């Protein structure tokens, strides 16, 4: 049927616009703004199991640009839970670069910029250029550093962690003044463990030593659940942030992200629990604007 010949005011949608538009189904969500997603820049730190899921989800959603930071090479043990790695041609290559090549097939319009450096040595201006920062890391040190810079530059930061059947997601955002950051929840034990790993001689201890560091057990089902929740938090922040900055509350159609809260997934009892994190008034990171910072 040709729409020009119909002589009534009812808008006729061509079939091609329903099935031909790549993002048609997600555009049907109330409050969705595809343009905002397509212009956004997201930093993903860590290209392991969760990092794969997050980059895959964001790429398929049609995100604008992704900075992908990981200095690691692919081992055989990674292949059991990473969608974008394959056995034939990705072994012993940089994780970030393999993901970049794999995402070209998923969505050629997305720009993925692989950075094969340690998080300590990247250009700190990169943090400012991002709309959201995502950490898909396995260690506390890098997570805290990302938290510190994201908090300082007022960029929303979505953190995730996994451990066999358990997982957690937390969002940190400095413009929500009462919300806790990751550093607020750090205990003396964490600091001690960090120190022991670094050790007095300046050398890292043997990673096979279970007392100092252990290899985290993980399966793809947990990582895809947590990676899915994490990438949804990224989309929620991207879609709702302008409303939050303008009116002080999040867009009700999109909902509030988990700012200052931690979502804990327990795969053994099939439960999701959300807890509010307490803000530490003497926190090293988020109390820096207070008057007596660092003193008494």
């Amino acid at each position, binding site marked *: 049927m040709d729409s020009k010949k119909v002589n009534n005011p009812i808008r006729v949608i061509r079939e091609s616009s329903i099935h031909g538009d790549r993002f048609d189904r997600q555009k049907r969500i109330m409050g969705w703004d595809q343009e905002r997603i397509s212009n956004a820049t997201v930093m993903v730190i860590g290209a392991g199991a969760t990092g794969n899921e997050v980059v895959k989800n964001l790429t398929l959603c049609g995100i604008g640009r992704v900075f992908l930071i990981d200095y690691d090479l692919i081992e055989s043990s990674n292949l059991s839970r990473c969608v974008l790695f394959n056995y034939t041609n990705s072994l012993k290559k940089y994780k970030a670069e393999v993901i970049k090549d794999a995402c070209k097939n998923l969505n050629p319009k997305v720009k993925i910029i692989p950075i094969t450096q340690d998080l300590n040595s990247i250009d700190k201006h990169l943090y400012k250029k991002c709309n959201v920062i995502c950490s898909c890391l396995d260690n506390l040190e890098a997570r*805290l550093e990302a938290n510190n810079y994201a908090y300082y530059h007022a960029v929303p930061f979505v953190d995730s962690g996994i451990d066999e059947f358990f997982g957690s997601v937390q969002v940190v955002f400095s413009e929500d003044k009462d919300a806790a950051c990751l550093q607020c929840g750090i205990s003396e034990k964490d600091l001690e463990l960090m120190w022991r790993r670094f050790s007095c001689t300046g050398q890292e201890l043997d990673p096979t030593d279970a007392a100092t560091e252990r290899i985290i057990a993980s399966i793809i089902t947990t990582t895809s659940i947590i990676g899915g929740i994490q990438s949804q938090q990224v989309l929620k922040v991207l879609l709702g942030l302008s409303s939050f900055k303008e009116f002080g509350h999040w867009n009700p159609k999109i909902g509030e992200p988990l700012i200052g809260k931690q979502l804990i997934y327990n795969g053994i009892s099939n439960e999701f629990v959300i807890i509010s994190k307490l803000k530490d008034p*003497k926190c090293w990171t988020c109390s*820096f604007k207070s008057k007596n910072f*660092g*003193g008494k």
Partner: protein
Amino acid sequence: MPELPYEIWLKRVRNEIKILKKLDLVDGRSIKWYKNSVEIWLKLKALGFIKKFGNNNLNISPKLDHRIFIKINRSFPYPGGIDFSWHSEIYHPNIHPVELNHSNYLGTGYICLNVLRKWSKLSDLETTVKSLQILVENPNPQDPLQYNLCVDAASFFKKYSIEKLKKIFEIESFHQYEVKKDDDIIIHKE
């Protein structure tokens, strides 16, 4: 080790040094600012002892002024972000001073104090310096550093406690340090 953004780090270090200046432990000349670190020469007042032959029967004499070198690195206040070394002569089981002919100053000058190693959430330079004073005045001979001087000092302090030495040298009381500006925080005046 993680690090704080530069501006937060700078603010924190400045506040710490401000407190040290208020306590009259450092002055402006003893602080050197570098791009990613700060070096501080600290004047510590505490009752310590040095080895001095022929001075008396014990071959020992009291010493009140000490010098400590503190280097604050970029990863401060995370663990490992701060280095301490002892730079004046002392006879103490838990402190080994820097050997003056040693080329690497940070290599020696060990201080055996847990607070220096485990930087906790509530630590700051002020409490650390106070705990250093307490260490100087209360040596722990049960757990000496493994240097000849320290092991020797440990066996000495096992025989003579600090209380005994205070009587021998007729030191009645000792000021830790006095805060000049605030009248209400004067410590140890008997």
